[in-house]
């Protein structure tokens, strides 16, 4: 079993009287794909925001590589290598597909902002590097033909791929994907599942929140199940499919939803 990379330690988030995430603990291991599932309102998205430090936990902490990251600014957490993508198609709509990726290469910059303005040799070599890396990521995700299209014109499936591409541009160690398969048909989902596996094969550890159970079962090494903010199960897809508490949480729809 590979080493634990990111630890979620008794994490709690309260909004007024509502407990969105309640005392959740689990580990993310290096180079695995871990899915977080659960019915609507189970606290999955809040958990993601907590890990990427977009919101501050009420109690508990998140540790990455032995260092507490909860409560730090999101760009600091991103700098350390924990990067999230967003639900829906969150991209830079007014830019071309390629400019989206070039903008997202910020963490690889060696030149200062003024260096970029003045066009110093460091800045020029940075820009060449961003371009080459962006082209490589576009090719990897099959977006090369769309490189110079305005991002706002892409169809849904490609938008998701672009969202993942933006995440990859930051060269993350952990990529948090928020519902990467939502709104996709079967073929698109299977294509996206392979993309995510490919991302893992590049050495990136992937954690995803998803509703599409067949896809989750297909893609995940391990699964964490949340219900009403609490972790009710953790294990391999096979273990989760036969877990009684999980079936109970999805009661009445288990046949279709869990994909058994």
């Amino acid at each position: 079993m590979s080493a634990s990379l990111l630890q979620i330690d008794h994490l709690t988030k309260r909004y007024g009287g509502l407990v969105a995430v309640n005392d959740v603990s689990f580990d993310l291991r290096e180079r695995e794909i871990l899915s977080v599932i659960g019915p609507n309102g189970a606290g999955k998205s809040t958990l993601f925001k907590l890990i990427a430090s977009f919101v501050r936990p009420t109690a508990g902490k998140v540790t990455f590589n032995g260092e507490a990251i909860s409560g730090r600014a999101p760009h600091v957490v991103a700098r350390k290598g924990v990067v999230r993508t967003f639900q829906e198609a969150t991209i830079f709509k007014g830019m071309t597909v390629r400019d989206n990726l070039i903008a997202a290469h910020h963490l690889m910059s060696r030149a200062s902002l003024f260096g970029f303005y003045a066009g110093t040799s460091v800045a020029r070599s940075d820009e060449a590097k961003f371009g080459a890396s962006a082209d490589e990521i576009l090719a990897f995700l099959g977006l090369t033909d769309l490189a110079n299209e305005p991002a706002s014109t892409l169809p849904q499936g490609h938008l998701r791929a672009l969202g993942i591409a933006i995440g990859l541009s930051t060269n993350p160690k952990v990529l948090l994907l928020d519902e990467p398969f939502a709104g996709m048909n079967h073929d698109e989902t299977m294509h996206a599942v392979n993309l995510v596996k490919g991302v893992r094969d590049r050495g990136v550890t992937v954690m995803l929140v998803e509703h599409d159970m067949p896809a989750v079962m297909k893609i995940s090494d391990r699964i964490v199940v949340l219900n009403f903010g609490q972790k009710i199960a953790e294990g391999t897809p096979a273990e989760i499919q036969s877990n009684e508490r999980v079936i109970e949480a999805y009661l009445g729809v288990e046949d279709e939803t869990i994909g058994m």
Partner: protein
Amino acid sequence: MMSNTVKATGLLVLVLVLLAGVPLGIGATGRYDIYYTLTLISLLAIASAGVWITFYIGRINIGQGAYALIGAYVSAILVATYGVSFWLTIPLAGLFAALVSVFIGVPILRLRGVYFAMVTLVSTEVARLSALALPITNGAKGMVNLPLPGPISLFGLTLVPDFGKLENPRLAFYLLSVIIMLICFAGLYRLVHSRLGLLFSALQQNEELAASTGVNIAYLRVIAYAISSFLGGIAGAIFAAISQSVYPSSFTTADSINFMLNCFLGGLGYVLGPLVGTFVLRFGWELLFQTAQYQLLIYAVALIALMLVLPNGLLSLVGVRRTGRGSK
């Protein structure tokens, strides 16, 4: 998309017209009053360019008048009270305005949309009241009888003559303003087409996503706001030298609103937008002077109609290449 040759030719023509064509034309027709209008337009365009940058990071800035006023006072006080050369006060006024904007910007740039706009709207009024109250600004009497800019000499060679000894200081001020305006817009063009511009437009389009890719959005917002205020400050400094005076009411909230309108009218997606907008708005206003009491009515209706018909600004009509990343 226009080719680079066409663009370069267009730019050359613009520079030639501004620096040679206009003075020749005015000399031939004897309409020396137009110098003042065009000088004013150049300065207002510089301040508007600053507002345009804050639009570029997705903030509506209705407070540029405050920084123009700050720049005007900094220059006037340095020249009149401390005897500093006017030329040196141009960058100092800009830097001081930028410094003030950093302190103001850090807390208020967290706000978005109408909330940021509202806070900036009151800032010009705050600047005016401060100018009335502070001991150093000479209150409501203002700073008057400012000396004209002196000469610049380098190794005994006179680069810029003493404005006070010129036969036609209006021409000198016109050339000064136009040259500084051209430098500012060249700088703005470079900014928009550098990585800095790409990051600014990333902020405009989605701050959360930008933060998640590791961009320090709070820092970038302040940088953009400081550049914006720097431009406001230098425009104000030159304005003070031309009118040889500055009063608390030299720049008012109405001016701040006009700076914003200039950007809207010219086009938020075009670097030259604030310049074109300022030119059309200012000249349009002066041309309507003959319509007397209907001036404001016609002007207002024309503005509303223009914004309805051309939401992307006047430049969308000419099809000048968009920056490619501006707002929709």
